[in-house]
Each structure stands twice: as C-alpha cells, then as structure tokens.
C-alpha cells in the first residue's frame, strides 16, 4: 500500500518536473525571438531583442513615443503606423483605433509585440525626444492647488523645445503607485532657458503624479523627464491672436508669451484667463510685466464666481461669456487654447460663431 502511494507520488513529481522542463524549453525556443530589426521611416534601422512590446523596446533604444499610462493601453497616445505585417489587432487596441486608422494600420505600440522584423513610421520630431535627469530646483505655490516646479537639467544639461510643447514627468514607485508612471505637463518656461524646465501642476484628486508632486517631492530631489512633445506652438503668421486658458492651462501660454517678448514678436494678442475667485488667479504680476514688454498684448483675467471680499472690478462670468462680449469679428484671428475639454469645446463654439475658421484654432486639451 505504502509502496503504491510512493510510486504515485514519484510519478506525479516526475510528470511535474517534465512539464516544467517543457515550459523552460518552450520559453527559450518559442518565446525567444532573438534579434529583430526595426526600420523606422525607411531610414533608421535598429537591432533589438525580440519579444517585448514595441513601446518599451523603442524606449530601451532611447526613442520615446508619447504615452501617459506607462504601456497599459489606457491612454491611447502611443500610436505608430506599422508598414510591415504584424498580425491582427488585439482586443485592447480596438477601443482606441478609428476605422480610418485601421485602414492605415495605425497600432498602439504598447500592445503589439516585436516578434519579427518590423517597419514603422513615426513623426520625425520624435527623434528629438530625449530622456533627461533633472534636479528639482524650486517648488512654489501659485495657488492653493497649483504648484510651479522648476527642474534644473543634469544630463543632458540642455533641452531644445518650442514654446507651447510638453514633457512627460516620471513619477517613481511610491505609496500610491506600485510602478513608475508618466504624466504629460506643458513647459511654462521660455525655450531660451535651455538648462531648466518649469512646469505648472494642478492637484488632481487621487492623481498619482500630482499627489507625488504635492506631497512627496522636495527641492533637491532628482526627477526624470522626457520630451519635448506636441504640436501646440505659435504659428508663424501675422494674424491677431486670442489666447484662452484656465488653471494650469496657463503654462504653455506663458511660455509662448515669454518667447514672443524675447523675440520681439509684436502681434496684437489678447489673453483671456478664466478662474473662479481671486484665490484661483496667479502670475498676475508676470502678465502685467508682459503687457509692458509686448505693447500690443493685453491680459484679461475673468472670474466666474468672485467672492464679495474679492472686491473684483475686472471681468466677471464664465470665460466663454467674457469671450463672447469681447470678440466682435473672429475672421482675422488665430486662437490658442489650453485647458479642460469642457472649456475648450465651449470656447471653440464661441470662436467659430464669431467667424473664426476652425483650422485656425489650436488647442491642447487635457484629455
């Protein structure tokens, strides 16, 4: 009886060992894709270790595709055009891909694995995106829920970006997050200051990155960023400009205005900035200073719910109402908007009603 029991146990152990061996062999052979060649934009070739998602493979080669969710397929940012055969779409890609994009074989780079030679197309400007080690030089409160964070670049020591573009800020593992994640923030500093990147970060309830910035980082800490990214920058025309922003949407507009002042771009420009009460207003002195440096620029802060103690004598109402009152004819205008999707959608509606052509409305939506 005992011997049959022992034989059964030994047989089971033997079978389990055999299966484990099979899995190891399978992992080393079937799962081992060896070296794979990725061709980018028909020009650049890189040889990489196969088997990993395209996004992280490219990141390993210091080629950064924008991604806000760390490769989990929940932001839909990391799209690339794949021009070689890579198989069917996986289910996690489909919510993000339009019918038009399917025809173009646009794929989510975090969801497709590099298993064989691959050819892709990406915007040329992504070749300029780099990873930077930085040190937190200064943190200052702009309002009760917006902080300005100044990062001093360590390695590389300089960054080249266009006013209005954004970077991705890496939040390391901490109590709210079991792994590092990236979040996008617009640069508020002037591009000529190549040694620093300044950000304006607004606290988001339970936000992984904003909570980290508000409760954990301190001056002197090291932070990793990558960038620059984005198509939100001042177009090279002579058209009169309307800027519209709210909250931390101030950041890219401030960068553009500082750049204009430095370069002597003397275009007529009006900046409508929406806030609730005076507690939510910030950088007023900086804006007044810019009005002096840019003679045809005016700053119009507007409060949607000024408190009695604010003794506010400026513009009141939602930013769209103020815009509606101020703009007569939008035909000759170019508009640059940064803020919440609700604010942008409502502002675009007002602008187009005023005759502004939709293709001349540029925006950076927090969505």
């Amino acid at each position, binding site marked *: 009886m005992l011997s049959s029991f022992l034989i059964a146990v030994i047989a089971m152990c033997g079978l389990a060992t055999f299966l484990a061996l099979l899995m190891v062999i399978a992992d080393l052979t079937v799962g081992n894709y060896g070296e794979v060649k990725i061709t980018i934009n028909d020009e650049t070739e890189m040889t990489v270790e196969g088997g990993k998602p395209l996004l992280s493979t490219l990141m390993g080669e210091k080629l950064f595709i924008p991604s806000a969710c760390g490769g989990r397929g929940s932001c839909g940012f990391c799209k690339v055009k794949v021009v070689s055969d890579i198989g069917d779409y996986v289910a996690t890609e489909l919510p993000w891909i339009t019918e038009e994009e399917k025809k173009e074989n646009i794929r989510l780079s975090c969801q497709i694995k590099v298993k064989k030679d691959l050819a892709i197309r990406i915007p040329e400007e992504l070749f300029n995106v780099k990873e930077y080690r930085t040190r937190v030089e200064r943190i200052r409160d702009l309002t009760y829920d917006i902080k300005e964070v100044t990062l001093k670049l360590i390695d590389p020591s300089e960054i080249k970006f266009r006013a209005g573009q954004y970077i991705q800020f890496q939040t390391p593992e901490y109590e709210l997050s079991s792994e590092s994640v990236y979040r996008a923030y617009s640069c508020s500093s002037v591009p000529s200051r190549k040694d620093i990147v300044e950000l304006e970060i607004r606290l988001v309830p339970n936000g992984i990155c904003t909570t980290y910035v508000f409760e954990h980082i301190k001056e002197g800490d090291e932070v990793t960023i990558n960038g620059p990214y984005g198509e939100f920058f001042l177009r090279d025309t002579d058209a009169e400009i309307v800027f519209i922003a709210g909250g931390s949407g101030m950041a890219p507009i401030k960068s553009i205005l500082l750049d204009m002042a430095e370069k002597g771009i003397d275009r007529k420009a009006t900046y409508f900035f929406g806030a609730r009460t005076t507690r939510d207003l910030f950088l007023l002195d900086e804006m007044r200073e810019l009005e002096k440096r840019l003679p045809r620029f005016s700053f119009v802060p507007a409060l949607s719910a000024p408190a009695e103690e604010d003794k506010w004598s400026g513009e009141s109402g939602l930013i769209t109402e103020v815009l509606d009152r101020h703009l007569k004819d939008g035909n000759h205008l170019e508009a640059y908007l940064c803020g*919440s999707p609700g604010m942008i959608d409502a502002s675009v509606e007002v602008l187009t009603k005023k005759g502004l052509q939709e293709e001349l409305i540029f925006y950076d939506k927090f969505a």
Partner: protein
Amino acid sequence: MKQTVQMDRIQEKMQPGVYTRDGFLGTDRRKLIDILIEDDEAVKRMDLTHRQIADRMIGLRDAGMRGLGEFINVEPHYEIRVISVRGKLPCPFGDPGIFPKTNTVVRNTKLDREVTFTDMHIHMVGSHGFYEGKGSPFRLEPAELAEVLDIEPIRE
C-alpha cells in the same frame, strides 16, 4: 450566490495592472459577487436603486460641467468641479466603449463634505451596481454617496 466563470474573468480584469495600475478592488479579497451583493443590500436598505444613484451623479456632473473645469455653485448647496485628465478606460465588465478620465468633485457645503467620482464610476454604479472594492483609492461608499449627493428614496 456562486460566482460564475464569467464573473471570474471580470474579476481578473479588475486586478492591478490590467486596466488600471491599482485595479478596482483595493485590498478587498472577496469574490466580486460578494462585493456586489453587499453593496446591493446597502443600497436597498436605503430604499434606493443603483440607477437612481447613477442618475443623480450624472445630473450633478452635467451641472458642474458648466464651470468649464473650475468649481461652480449649483443649487441648493453644492460646489462642483468637473476635471478631465488625459486618458480613457474600458469597462472591466466588458461593455462597449471607453470612458474618459473625468473626475467630478461634489462639495456639499451644507454638510461640509465632498465626494469625487469618475465617468467610469457612473457607468459601473448604474449598469453593474459596482462601487469598487474596499481599500480601493476610488471606492465609493453607497451610504456616503446618498448622503453627500442628497439622494432620497422615490416615494410612490
């Protein structure tokens, strides 16, 4: 009630790292069916329905959207802010579509308390009676929701 295989699959999608970094279950180690049953009972005890709670959330979110990303006063005693962060999420229950990461913060100034919920919450509460697991940073307590959002039973 016994959890179905389909529910097992849904619960897998709710684990950290599948759809969201922290998942939907927090420190709750119970079966999904037990989480749903307990919250369902809590809602029934208040003489409410999940749909009613979700509809109230929708109403307040829509009212808050007029603030264009800033807090706005909403009658009779709320301050509401609707903010969007980059990204969208699919529903772990497998429903079609993706939900924007829109946070609605409702401050009940009469009670001096606030709750924050997302568009995904509205969908999961209304369609599935799911308020996330205990210990999840985004867990909503049905009783707290009902209190802060002033949701009253509908009397026939």
